[in-house]
């Protein structure tokens, strides 16, 4: 792995020539092949890919969950963990205990965000029940509320936005893309409607290779070609 010194660009999340390989029982599999992209402040970026194209791996590398095999990832802003259905939560703990845990590890005062999270997640009395009893919609609401509480500059979203009713989705949209806040988002999905709706420009990931496009529509057109070719 190269450890060349690189500067951190203020307000940018940079993925530079990243390759990720996994060892399996039948040899090494290259999941990401020389991938580069930059997320700037206020970007609404989408990554479109089929199942197994490496999109979840990419977003996990961007979130610092696992290291790249080669290449570098530099974060010049506060980047969230990848918001997904699993991960991040302790399902045996209550929503409130999960909030306490998150506050402690990110150095945030519980009292400052507790009311906000309780209100935003709309869990009612379930907030004091173990997360394992939650529906997927409730988990998604808690995931969003927690990431808003930590006040990240860049939020990584792995499909999870697809759940919940329209009203809650609107609420998330308003909070995520509050123009006063100037937050960046990266959404990975196989669903072109989500990408069209929530992204200004998009990438398509095919077999570990990343293809950049100016607009979400161009990316979707290319994606459909690869899908049926």
């Amino acid at each position, binding site marked *: 792995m190269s450890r060349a010194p690189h500067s951190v660009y*203020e*307000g940018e999340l940079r993925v530079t020539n990243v390759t990720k390989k*996994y060892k399996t029982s039948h040899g090494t599999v290259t999941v990401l092949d020389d991938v580069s992209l930059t997320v700037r*402040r206020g970007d609404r970026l989408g990554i479109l890919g089929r199942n197994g194209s490496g999109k979840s791996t990419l977003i*996990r590398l961007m*979130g*610092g*969950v*696992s*290291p790249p095999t080669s290449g570098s990832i530099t974060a010049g802003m506060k*980047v969230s*963990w*990848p918001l997904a259905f*699993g*991960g*991040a*939560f*302790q399902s*045996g*703990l209550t929503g409130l*205990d999960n909030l*306490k*845990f*998150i506050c*402690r*590890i*990110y*150095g945030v*005062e519980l009292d*400052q*965000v507790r009311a*906000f999270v309780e209100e935003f997640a709309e869990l009612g009395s379930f907030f004091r029940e173990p997360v394992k009893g939650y529906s997927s919609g409730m988990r998604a609401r808690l995931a969003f509320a927690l990431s*808003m*509480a930590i*006040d990240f*500059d860049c939020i990584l979203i792995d499909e999870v936005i697809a759940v919940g009713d329209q009203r809650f989705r609107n609420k998330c949209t308003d*909070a995520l893309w*509050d123009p*006063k*806040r*100037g*937050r960046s988002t990266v959404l990975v999905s196989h669903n072109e409607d989500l990408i069209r709706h929530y992204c200004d420009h998009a990438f398509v990931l095919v077999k570990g290779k990343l293809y950049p496009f100016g607009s979400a529509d161009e990316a979707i057109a290319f994606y459909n070609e690869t899908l049926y070719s």
Partner: protein
Amino acid sequence: MTGPNEPIASRRREEPSFARSLQLQLSVWWALAMREALTRFGRHNVGFLWLFFEPMSFTIGITLVWTLLKMTHGSSIHIASFALTGYSSIMLWRNPATRISHSITVNMALLYHRNVRALDIVIARILLEIAAISASFFGLAILFVFFEFCEPPEDIPLLVAGWSLLALFATGLSLCIAALTEKTELFDRIWHTITYLLFPFSGAGTLLDWLPPGARKALLYLPFAHGVEMIRHGYYGSSIRTHEDWQYLLYVSLVLVFVGIAAIESVAREVEPE
């Protein structure tokens, strides 16, 4: 501090100071330890007071058994303090070193947060175990002395120093075990057996001075035996003869700590959170 949804332009980005980094590191360990205690014991009834009650009940049980067996062989020392120092010393290294098995794999989801590293998960659990047994040991010591089951300790600083050194050994050993159990399944299976087989050689059930010189010399190769001897030296003062070499225990512990940290860093490069 800025609240959620405040414009970025109004915030300055500053390099975290050493004090701030240290504070965050400690709060990560605290968060992980609290989470571990909560998941293990829940919020029901006395909840995570069981963390202390569990080792206490073991020690009290052993004290009763040893009293019945008259383990102190008619020497002048009280059986209660002898069992307390002996069995607590064993638990101080054995509990963390057995409960640390697979701690990284089972807590993999925590690695989703960039402030949590594999080493943090392991250290937090070791600290939790050490804190629980220390609270049990010192709590019972105060109770035993208060109710006059045994004499008060002679040399408290020496006792605390011995306890701290043995805790450092426990930390080093547990770090190594944590890495080994992640590397091979087999090790986890034999490790529990090994810890039980080590019981007679732990120095807990006897003073080394009561042993023939040959056996004593052999036992003194085991680092934890030095810890028990030192703790008893502190407890009984010069009324007994002890044979510990604190430097040997310190050096072995430091080597284990460094080897353990390196091994866990190597494991951390291999694990992939789901």
